[in-house]
């Protein structure tokens, strides 16, 4: 199902892709403000006009079992599904769940890595949003330990 918002967004992405050297044309990307303020996986999907996310073994989330420091937690998201449009990385218990959203083209693999802040131990999600609006996810728990007395 495509909402009006989603349709607008898609054309924005196309405009972004048309930008030649990677410099941003004015307002090429309409920043997904609502999605980046959403508190849960379901709300993020909704804000992006995607369907209710379904767990899938074809999506992979990567990250440490224990993060020594919540300031920097390496996370990866990838999928083997064909027809993926966006790849998302989420941290459930952060003030806003969505960390990063990658818009696909045929020229990149659906496999991304970045590093996230985590306020506390939490489930982290990799989500693949498909061209038809379906969303698939994988999750894993990342424990965040406190450091020492500061050293």
């Amino acid at each position: 199902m495509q909402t009006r918002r989603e349709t607008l967004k898609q054309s924005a992405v196309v405009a972004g892709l048309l930008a030649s050297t990677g410099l941003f044309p004015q307002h090429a990307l309409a920043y997904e403000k609502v999605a980046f303020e959403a508190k849960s996986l379901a709300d993020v999907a909704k804000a992006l006009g995607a369907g209710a996310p379904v767990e899938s073994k074809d999506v992979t989330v990567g990250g440490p079992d224990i993060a020594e420091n919540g300031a920097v937690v390496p996370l990866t998201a990838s999928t083997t599904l064909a027809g993926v449009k966006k790849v998302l990385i989420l941290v459930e218990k952060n003030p806003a769940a969505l960390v990063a959203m990658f818009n696909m083209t045929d020229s990149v693999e659906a496999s991304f890595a970045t590093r996230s802040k985590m306020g506390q131990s939490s489930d982290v999600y990799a989500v693949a949003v498909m061209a038809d609006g379906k969303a698939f996810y994988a999750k894993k728990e990342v424990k965040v330990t406190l450091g020492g007395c500061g050293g």
Partner: protein
Amino acid sequence: MKRLALAIGIVVVAGSALAQKSASDGIAEYRAMLQDGNPAELFEAKGEDLWKQKRGPKNASLEQCDLGKGPGVVKGAFVELPRHFADTNKVQDLESRLLTCMETLQGFNAAEIAKTPFGKGEQNNVTALATWIAAESRGMKFNLPNSHVAEKTMYEVGKRLFFMRGGSHDFACATCHGDDGKRIRLQDLPNLTKNPGDGAGFAAWPAYRVSNGQMWGMQLRLNDCYRQQRFPYPLFGSDATIALGMYMGVNAKGAESIAPAIKR
């Protein structure tokens, strides 16, 4: 990387494997993940630019700076510092030597920079320079000359300061760094009374701190150790910090430098 398993059998296997994996294994895995892409590289690049750039009241670069191996020789300088310099007739560490060069070559006021808080103004540039200079000796082994009488004296002074107990908590450097195989919370503590191994202790700094996203040189590393020791504030480039550098550097003889490292 763990694929989310749907089959219950797989979940059980994964669960027990997880339970067997100790917390320290998990932390080691986390640290390994961070090695690929150390933001210290950003500071390295900046430091190299700063070295070559004409700056300061004299509008000069640092390319004629003598870090101990002759003017302009950067490679290998890091693993031989601190050392005695004839021109200043002082034992200097990397950061205090950089201040000397910034003053004599570029016309900066070294005392002003030393007084500038970490992370501000020219201090940021000193850190970036130290990061790049350290990186130029990556993979080399520590080998301080320690032959001049002033160097030997500073080593002995450093040893005494290393064991000096004081402050509200009676801590010395040795409280945490005087023994093998110890931890504070989950952090491994290098034994700095001897060679603690490749890339440990003195051979790891400057380092990028992931906890605060800051690049720390040895001067700030020592400063924050003293803060946590509940000692008063060590002056930047003071003889106490250089004596400690001398003690740790000589003890680290043979240790391979991995600086700039990435730390929690």
